[in-house]
């Protein structure tokens, strides 16, 4: 047993007391204890992390990090780990610290043997230096909340800095199909494992109006695409400098997707069959990322496939809520690529779409709501039976639907979360499915409302 320095011990105790107090008052304790620990002594989190025998895995990227890290937590658990994991979207440095503090004993001994952390792109460098991950997974990089993250080039630079801060024996797990992510492996000294989709039949169902990347991230010549899956993700090559999609070590072949989920066969290696119980090709990418990270940790693909086969989605990621016989499908949307992926999944089902959609512009949502104009509402509009629109920026969303071609008499702007949910229930019948597309704090608010009405449980009880 190693005793913590007095300062770290004090920070740990303060953080634990904060957590206990929050629990007593019935509130979720996902970040405040971490903030307490970090403000008193950042070394306390580093101290605990360094004593996890199986080490730390960090998952970052624009979309899919919550689902990927939860899948990966299931994968490592099935192979015998007892990991600590930051759930419920507290993915800043303070959330990571809070999870470590909550897991540790009062003298700073971790109870877990390893850690799986999803980490926000803005915090990635801080967290990488703090917890020294043995594996860093990057899912994809898209334009996202310009006001918070800055330009895509800035985010990519941050990811490269985080990679440079990794210990020498660390492994980078990268999406081969995303040129920006792929390039991060270019000058990396350690090991790189790439994942991707090796199936020519997988290409975008939606017109890709806005691409973040039309030019080579290495030499700036125009990129050529043989296949586009989503945005700038696909099969690309640069005619000028030779930069091209590499052959991924972990590759999905024979991909089949329907409303219930996605199935594929791992091309390289054992050829294990994988069933992802979540619809949408982007969830195939999330599963591939988890399998590739498992591979980096020495976990068999068959074990990973088994864990993923019984995966349960996280808060706001295709979560189903039953309300008065209606099925509400909650999907968190926060940037154009995420929205387009959600829309493509929705459109792959038959029949018309009943929509509850909510736009907020608080810090966690992004204060700039411009992104809705880059999202492909045009593809969705012809299939919408009606849309109930709510949130702090509901009028912007209603206007977006108007310009997307939805008739004004199919759009209902409703103020207040309770009234919006009630309006949806009034407009629908038992047996109906309703798609709920909302930004981060709007999803939280709607979920809280559904929970208060007795339809869903509080999210930190997950």
């Amino acid at each position: 047993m190693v005793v913590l320095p007095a300062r770290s011990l004090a920070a740990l105790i303060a953080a634990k007391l904060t957590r206990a107090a929050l629990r007593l008052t019935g509130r979720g304790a996902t970040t405040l204890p971490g903030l307490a620990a970090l403000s008193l002594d950042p070394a306390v989190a580093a101290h605990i992390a360094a004593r996890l025998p199986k080490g730390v895995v960090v998952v970052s990227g624009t979309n899919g990090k919550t689902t990927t890290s939860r899948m990966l937590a299931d994968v490592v658990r099935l192979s015998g780990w007892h990991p600590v994991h930051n759930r419920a979207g507290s993915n800043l440095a303070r959330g990571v610290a809070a999870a470590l503090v909550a897991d540790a004993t009062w003298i700073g001994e971790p109870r877990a043997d390893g850690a799986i952390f999803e980490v926000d792109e803005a915090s990635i460098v801080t967290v990488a230096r703090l917890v020294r991950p043995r594996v860093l997974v990057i899912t994809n990089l898209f334009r996202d909340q310009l006001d918070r993250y800055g330009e895509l080039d800035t985010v990519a630079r941050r990811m490269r800095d985080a990679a440079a801060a990794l210990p020498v024996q660390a492994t980078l797990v990268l999406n081969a199909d995303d040129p920006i992510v792929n390039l991060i492996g270019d000058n990396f000294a350690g090991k790189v494992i790439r994942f991707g989709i090796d199936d020519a039949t997988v290409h975008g169902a939606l017109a890709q109006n806005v691409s973040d990347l039309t030019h080579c991230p290495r030499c700036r010549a125009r990129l050529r695409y043989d296949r586009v899956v989503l945005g700038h993700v696909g099969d690309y090559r640069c005619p000028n400098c030779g930069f091209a999609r590499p052959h991924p070590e972990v590759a999905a072949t024979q991909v089949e997707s329907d409303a219930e989920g996605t199935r594929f066969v791992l091309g390289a290696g054992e050829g294990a069959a994988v069933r992802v119980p979540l619809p949408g090709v982007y969830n195939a990418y999330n599963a591939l990322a988890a399998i590739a990270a498992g591979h980096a940790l020495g976990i068999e693909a068959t074990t990973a496939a088994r864990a993923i086969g019984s995966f349960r989605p996280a808060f706001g990621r295709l979560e189903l809520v039953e309300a008065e016989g209606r099925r509400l499908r909650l999907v968190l949307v926060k940037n154009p690529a995420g929205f387009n992926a959600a829309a493509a999944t929705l459109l792959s089902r038959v029949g018309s779409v009943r929509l509850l959609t909510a736009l907020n512009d608080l810090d966690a949502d992004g204060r700039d709501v411009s992104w809705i104009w880059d999202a492909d509402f045009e593809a969705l509009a012809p299939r919408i039976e009606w849309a109930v629109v709510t949130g702090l920026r509901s009028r912007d969303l209603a206007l977006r639907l108007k310009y997307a071609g939805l008739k004004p008499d199919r759009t209902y702007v409703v103020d207040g979360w309770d009234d919006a949910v009630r309006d949806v229930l009034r407009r629908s019948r038992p047996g109906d499915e309703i798609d709920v597309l909302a930004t981060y704090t709007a999803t939280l608010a709607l979920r809280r409302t559904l929970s208060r009405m007795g339809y869903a449980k509080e999210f930190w009880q997950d």
Partner: protein
Amino acid sequence: MDLRICHLYGDLMSIYGDRGNVLTLQRRAEWRGIAATVETVSAGDRLDPERFDLYFFGGGQDAQQDIVAADLAGPNGVALKEAIAGGAAVLSVCGGYQLLGHFYRPFEGPELPGVSALDVHTVAGRRRFIGNVVATAEQPLVGFENHSGLTYLGPNAKPLATIEVGAGNNGEDGSEGAVQGKVIGTYLHGSLLPKNPWLADKVITWALERRNGHVDLPALDDTAEREAREHAIALAHKRR
């Protein structure tokens, strides 16, 4: 009547909601029975100054902006100025606005030359202006700004609007954007035009008049636009 729109460098300069501006121009023409086409002209293409009535020139990331500045320093910059002299209307936002001025001066490295279609110049600033903007022109303007460039107007450019909430051109003189003839530059996205339909209609009118003489656009039902604008203005005041 038809409206020919050019999305200038649309593949390179299309950040955060620029697409909404192009969409708004197109829809508001179509809703009045005016056929509208949108074509993208990019670096390396040859811009025909006769072809378009309206140019939309949006913002971009730094690396992309370098490619565009280099292209504008060649024949396409000359063609764009010819088009403007021939009566075409231009709406530019953020990076596009900066490149229509005389130059952009970064902290380090060489000045990026602009095409001098607007009598403005821009210098790199230390702080980034991010947030909701409310400004007053002939009618209220509302949008979102995100820039660190400081833009200053010369005598031939007039401010587009006066700032009520936010920083605008430079955070010092209370001005936002610039107008010179039928060329408009602004830092507002959001997107800008959906919530400020009067400005969209003004630009469409200017553009149509290039080939049609005096144009009076019939009014549209702008209830949704007005509501979105009023709510955005109220929120911006509340959170300032």
